[in-house]
């Protein structure tokens, strides 16, 4: 399960796993019984929304129920609204949840007014499965000259994007065509795992880039660094450098939308069971994790760990009622016996993290600042913003310090402080 190799400097490295030569068809989990749709808006009172309990919705129907916002969600099922309630997300985000009681018949009318324009893409596909990064395009202060269609997954064992590039290449080609027409971006590149590079001549992409299988080469900043020769300055994003990353799945779904006239509602999700076995399934957006696990026959027990995402960068869930979202690439279940916990030792300066860091950060020094809450010094002196969020430092930590958690927290806190500092005075 954990394919561990010795790296050049003696540090442990991992490799991304390739799916079997001909990936098995994804198992479709289409009948969630109840789906929960989420809109990125805070829900305070009933009068905010036009939708009420009992309203009927159809698959593919656009719901923009807020009176003072254009935020919307595409219903992934046909049925009746059964509940509306506030839904807390990670890092203090607030969503509004709409529970839909699924009806027996699935009705999916086609969308009529599709045009190959950004406006049209934004109207229907902001939350399409794979989460196309539409908000990066069309910002005059930050022009994009290259769209990178990423056919690799960032985390280990996760194979959703890889599955899509290997099975839906025609849809990707169509999506590239639409994206090019709509965005006017000069170059579209496609990045695929190095070992799969043969056979991508006909996607309509201008450039084809091979990505190494060594973890964490699938991280966008490292793709830019190794495949494009672009070093993103610390604190800047890939978009600041003119590169917008789109997951292969999101591009395929753009293609499918324009091919069929229907907005796709199925997300490719990699299921990782307790033995580390990987299976790609297609699940309607809004399907509760519990329903997917049940359909796949994966049992969970007390003190197991349930993770949205992969083993290195995912998010642990506190219950199985959470749902599949546009960017849910994987669901992982870890047996209670395999759960490792952090310790309260301080850093012993063994240097394993320094030798495993793909961006050459002095993690041993950085973590000393972060433990003390000195986030700004950590960023200035020890390169916090060079971090690409791979989690290898925590993986190898002898003292079992939650280093990656400190780093995420520091980045979050600094972003919050900067946002306050840069916000115009509201007086």
């Amino acid at each position, binding site marked *: 399960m954990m394919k561990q190799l010795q790296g050049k400097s003696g540090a442990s490295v991992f490799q991304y796993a390739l799916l079997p030569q001909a990936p098995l068809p994804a198992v479709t989990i289409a009948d969630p019984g109840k789906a929960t749709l989420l809109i990125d808006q805070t829900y305070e009172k009933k009068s905010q929304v036009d939708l009420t309990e009992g309203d009927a919705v159809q698959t593919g129907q656009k719901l923009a129920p807020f009176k003072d916002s254009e935020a919307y969600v595409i219903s992934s099922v046909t049925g009746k609204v059964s509940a509306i309630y506030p839904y807390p997300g990670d890092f203090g985000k607030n969503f509004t949840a709409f529970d839909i009681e699924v009806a027996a018949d699935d009705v999916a009318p086609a969308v009529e007014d599709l045009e190959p324009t950004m406006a049209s893409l934004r109207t229907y596909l902001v939350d399409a499965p794979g989460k196309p990064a539409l908000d990066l395009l069309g910002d005059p202060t930050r022009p994009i000259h290259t769209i990178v269609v990423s056919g690799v997954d960032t985390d280990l064992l996760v194979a959703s994007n890889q599955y899509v590039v290997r099975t839906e290449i025609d849809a990707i080609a169509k999506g590239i065509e639409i994206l090019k027409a709509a965005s006017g971006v000069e170059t579209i590149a496609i990045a695929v795992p190095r070992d799969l590079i043969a056979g991508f001549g006909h996607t309509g992409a201008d450039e084809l880039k091979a990505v190494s299988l060594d973890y964490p080469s699938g991280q966008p900043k490292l793709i830019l660094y190794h495949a494009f020769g672009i070093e*993103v300055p*610390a604190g800047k994003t890939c978009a600041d450098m003119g590169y917008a990353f789109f997951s292969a799945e999101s591009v395929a779904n753009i293609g499918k939308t324009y091919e069929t006239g229907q907005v796709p509602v199925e997300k490719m999700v990699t299921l990782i069971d307790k033995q580390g076995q990987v299976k790609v399934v297609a699940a309607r957006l809004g399907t509760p994790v519990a329903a997917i696990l049940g359909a796949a026959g994966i049992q969970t027990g*007390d003190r197991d760990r349930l993770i949205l995402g992969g083993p290195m960068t*995912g998010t642990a869930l506190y219950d199985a009622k959470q749902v599949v979202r546009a960017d849910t690439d994987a669901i992982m279940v*870890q047996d209670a016996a395999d759960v490792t916990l952090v310790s*309260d030792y*301080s850093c012993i300066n063994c240097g394993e993290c320094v030798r495993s860091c793909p*961006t050459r950060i002095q993690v041993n020094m950085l973590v000393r600042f972060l433990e003390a809450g000195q986030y700004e010094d950590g960023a200035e002196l020890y390169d916090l913003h060079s971090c690409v969020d791979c989690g290898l430092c*925590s*993986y190898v930590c002898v003292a079992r310090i939650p280093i990656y958690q400190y780093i995420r927290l520091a980045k979050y806190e600094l972003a919050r402080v900067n946002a306050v500092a840069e916000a115009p005075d509201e007086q």
Partner: protein
Amino acid sequence: MSSKKMFIVSHAPFWHNGSNIPERCYGMIWAAMPAVALGIVQYGMPAVGVVCLAIATAVLAEWLMNRATKRTITITDGNAALLGLLFAMLVPATTPWWVVMVGTLLTVIIGLHIFGGLGANPFHPVAVSMMMLTVSWPAFMDFNAALVNYELSFNAVYPLTLAKNLGTAAVADFTTLDLLLGRQVGGIGSTFGLGLIGGGLYLMAKRYIRWEICLSFLASIFITALIFHMAAPDRFAGPLFHLLTGYTLVAAFFLLPESSSSPVNFIPMLIYGAGAGFLTILIRNIGSYHDGVLLAVLLMNIVNPLLDKIRPKALGKVA
């Protein structure tokens, strides 16, 4: 009671390579065992007494300091026991019980805990306490005086004393094989060359210590001693003699690569090891101490933070 399933929630990553601190400490204790075993064979029950007393005192001191600083009790992680054992390895088998206790207390309390405990010590705790003892009670740290009543099958004069006072000819009797097999006087666990090298190879293979530090130290000892030897063959002993006598090997594998007091980047590790080797020979050959290893370790510990400023440029670092 609620029948609801409870999941464990924590932060990514959810995998760990399984390494941990107790494994490291006990690994180092095992690696030291061959050398300690030969010391016990040579010096008998007094050596057993010193080793046991040192370990017991170290663990007790760790417990007291954990209590005093209101921290988790960490006596079972092996670090205190390792420090006690390392201290015992460096002293003569006849060291009085109170010197052993004072030395071990200094190791754990002054060397380690007043700096903040494991990971926070700027110097190797054992090097600190040994130097304090050397300065305070030089008589007890003198191997010639301490081991005068032993009937040993080999030359019972400390080889470094001979080399220092009488030059190369005086140590001609010590063959490399003798030194490798521990046929020399010295600390309980610091004379058995083969045992220490074996333990060191094990530690490097398990990656509990950094090979860059050990090898650059040994290479530097060899080269520096060779230069001295070539300059004045009569006065200065050859490089192999220096590699296999005194605390050279114990320092190479157990003192110098101690995590907290040594650098982590490649080039700094090489400088650190090489600097310690150079200083060792300098002190041995033209300094006033017979064995300069502990001083060299302490001096390089001091420059460690500076050395680690030599580091590769992080990805995307601007200027």
